[in-house]
C-alpha cells in the first residue's frame, strides 16, 4: 500500500505539470489555429485556409514593419552596448571617489518608471525633431535599457581580476586600448545577455514606439499590431496571423538564448 502511494506522487506531479503546460501554450495554439481560418471558418464553417494570411499583408505592411523593428532594436542595442560596457568597465576597474556617485546616477535611474518621464521626454523629442524617423524611439529605448545594462556590465567586470588590467597598463597600453583589447573580449557573455534581454524588451514594446515614431512608415511590428487592434479591426484571424508573426522573432531568440535570458533576469537578485 505504501509502495503504491509513492509511485502515485510523481504521476500526479507530472499530470499537473502537463495541464499547466497546456495553459501556458494555449495562446500559441489559438494563434496558429485561428490564423489558419478564413473569416467564415472562424465563425463556424469547417476547414482551414491561408486566406487570412493573405489579408494580413493587405492591412499590415508586415515586411516593412519587421524591418523597422529590427532597425530600431539594432540601433538602441548598439548604443546601450557601447555606453554600458564603457561605464561598467570604468565603475568596476577604474574606480575613484566619484565612482559610487556615478554608479547611483546611472543605475539608480532604474527606479524611474517610463510613464513618469514619457510626457516631458515626448515634448523634448518633438522640439528636437526626433519624432519623424527612428531616432526618438532609439534614444528613449537606449536610455531605458542603459541603467540595468550598466549594472550587469559592472558586476561582470568586477569578476575579472584587477591584475589583468594592471598588467596591460604596465605594458604601455592606454586605458582605451586595454578596454577594447583585453576587457571587451572577456565580457562577451555579459554582452550577449544584454543583447538578448534588450532585444525582447524593445521588440515587444508598444508605448514608446506608439508615441516616438510618428510616421506610419517607420512603425515597428508591435506598434502596427497594437494600432490595428485599437482601430478595432474585427477580423480576428487576420489579427492572430499578425500576432503570430510579430511574436516569432522574439520567441526564436528566447529559444536559442534561454540561458542568457535567465541569467539576466536573476542577476538582479544579487549575491
Amino acid at each position: 500500500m505504501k509502495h503504491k502511494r509513492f509511485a502515485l506522487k510523481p504521476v500526479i506531479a507530472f499530470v499537473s505539470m502537463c495541464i499547466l503546460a497546456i495553459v501556458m501554450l494555449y495562446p500559441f495554439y489559438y494563434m496558429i489555429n485561428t490564423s489558419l481560418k478564413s473569416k467564415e471558418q472562424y465563425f463556424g464553417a469547417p476547414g482551414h485556409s491561408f486566406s487570412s494570411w493573405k489579408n494580413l499583408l493587405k492591412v499590415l505592411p508586415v515586411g516593412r514593419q519587421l524591418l523597422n523593428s529590427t532597425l530600431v532594436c539594432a540601433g538602441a542595442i548598439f548604443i546601450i552596448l557601447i555606453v554600458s560596457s564603457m561605464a561598467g568597465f570604468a565603475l568596476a576597474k577604474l574606480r575613484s571617489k566619484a565612482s559610487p556617485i556615478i554608479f547611483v546616477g546611472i543605475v539608480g535611474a532604474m527606479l524611474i518608471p517610463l510613464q513618469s518621464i514619457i510626457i516631458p521626454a515626448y515634448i523634448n523629442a518633438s522640439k528636437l525633431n526626433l519624432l519623424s524617423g527612428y531616432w526618438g524611439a532609439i534614444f528613449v529605448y537606449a536610455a531605458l535599457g542603459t541603467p540595468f545594462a550598466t549594472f550587469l556590465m559592472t558586476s561582470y567586470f568586477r569578476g575579472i581580476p584587477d591584475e589583468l588590467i594592471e598588467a596591460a597598463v604596465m605594458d604601455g597600453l592606454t586605458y582605451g586600448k586595454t578596454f577594447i583589447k583585453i576587457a571587451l573580449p572577456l565580457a562577451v557573455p555579459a554582452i550577449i545577455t544584454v543583447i538578448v534581454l534588450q532585444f525582447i524588451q524593445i521588440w515587444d514594446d508598444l508605448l514608446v514606439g506608439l508615441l516616438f515614431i510618428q510616421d506610419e512608415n517607420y512603425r515597428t511590428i508591435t506598434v502596427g499590431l497594437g494600432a490595428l487592434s485599437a482601430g478595432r479591426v474585427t477580423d480576428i484571424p487576420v489579427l492572430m496571423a499578425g500576432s503570430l508573426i510579430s511574436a516569432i522573432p522574439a520567441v526564436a531568440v528566447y529559444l536559442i538564448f534561454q540561458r542568457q535570458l535567465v541569467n539576466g533576469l536573476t542577476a538582479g537578485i544579487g549575491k
Partner: protein
Amino acid sequence: MKTTSALARQRSRSGVIFAIPALILVAAFLGIPIIQAGYFSFTEWNGVTAIWHGISTYNHEIHDPIFWRVLLNNGYLLLGIPIAILFPMGIAFLLNEKVYGWKIFRSIYFLPTAISWVVIGMVSMRFFAQEGLLNGLLKSFGLGFIKTDLLSSEQGALFAVGITFIWSMVGTNTIIFLTGMATLDQSLNEAARMDGAGNFRIFRSITLPQLNRFIQFSFIITVISAFTALFSLIFVMTGGGPGFGTTTLEFFIYQSAFSRGNFGTGAMLGVILFFMMAVLGIGQLLLMRNKDD
C-alpha cells in the same frame, strides 16, 4: 611614488571619462525629463504653454474621485500578487523534485516572457469574450448558466486583466524560485530530518528562510510590473474601460496627456507614480541592508 600617484590620477580620470556617455544618455532622456515632470506637475500645460498653479494642482487632484477610482484599480490588481507569487513557488517546488521532463516544462512556462503584452492582450481578449474559450469551458462543465461577457462590465474587465497579469507572471516567478531552490543547502534538510523534523517543519524553518531573498525579489518584480508594465495589455484588451473600470495609474497618465491634452495633469500623475515606485525600491534596499548587518 610620484609615478604611482600620477598613474592613479590618470586612472580615475579615465574612469570618469568612460562613464560620461552613459551619464549623458541617462540624464538627457530620464534625468532631465523627471525634473521637468516635477516642474510641470505644478502647472496647467498643453505641451506648448504652461500656467503655474503651484501646489493647488495636487490639491485639486486628490479631491477628484476619478483619481481615487484609478488608484483603487491598482489596489485590486495588487490583490492578485499573493497568487502570482505562491502559485509559481508551488510549481518551482514540483519542478525542483525533478519531475519527468522538468527541463522542458521549465522552458514552456517561461516562454510567454518572450511575447509582447500586445499579443497576450489580443489572445486574452478572445479568451474572455462572449463566444470565447472561457464560456465554452464553463458550458462543458455544465456551468453554462454562468455565461458571462467579463470584458463588458467594470469589475469583470479588471478581473480579466488581473488573471492575464497573473498568467504572464508565472514564468518569471517560477524561474526566480527555481534559481533560489538551486541554492538551498540540502545537508540542512538531512540534519533536521535526523532530528525528527517533519516535511512541513523543514519547509517552514529551513527552506523558507533560505528563500527569503528570492521571495522579496519576486515580490518587488511583481509589484513593479503591476504598476508599470500593464499599459500595452490594457491598451489592447480594454482601452481602460468600460468607464474607468480598468484604468490604472500608468494608463491614466497616458490618457490624461495624449487623449485629453492635459499634459500638466499627466506629468503630476507621473510624479506620483515615481514616488510610489521610489519608496518601494528604497524600502527594498533598506530591508536588504538590514539583513546584511
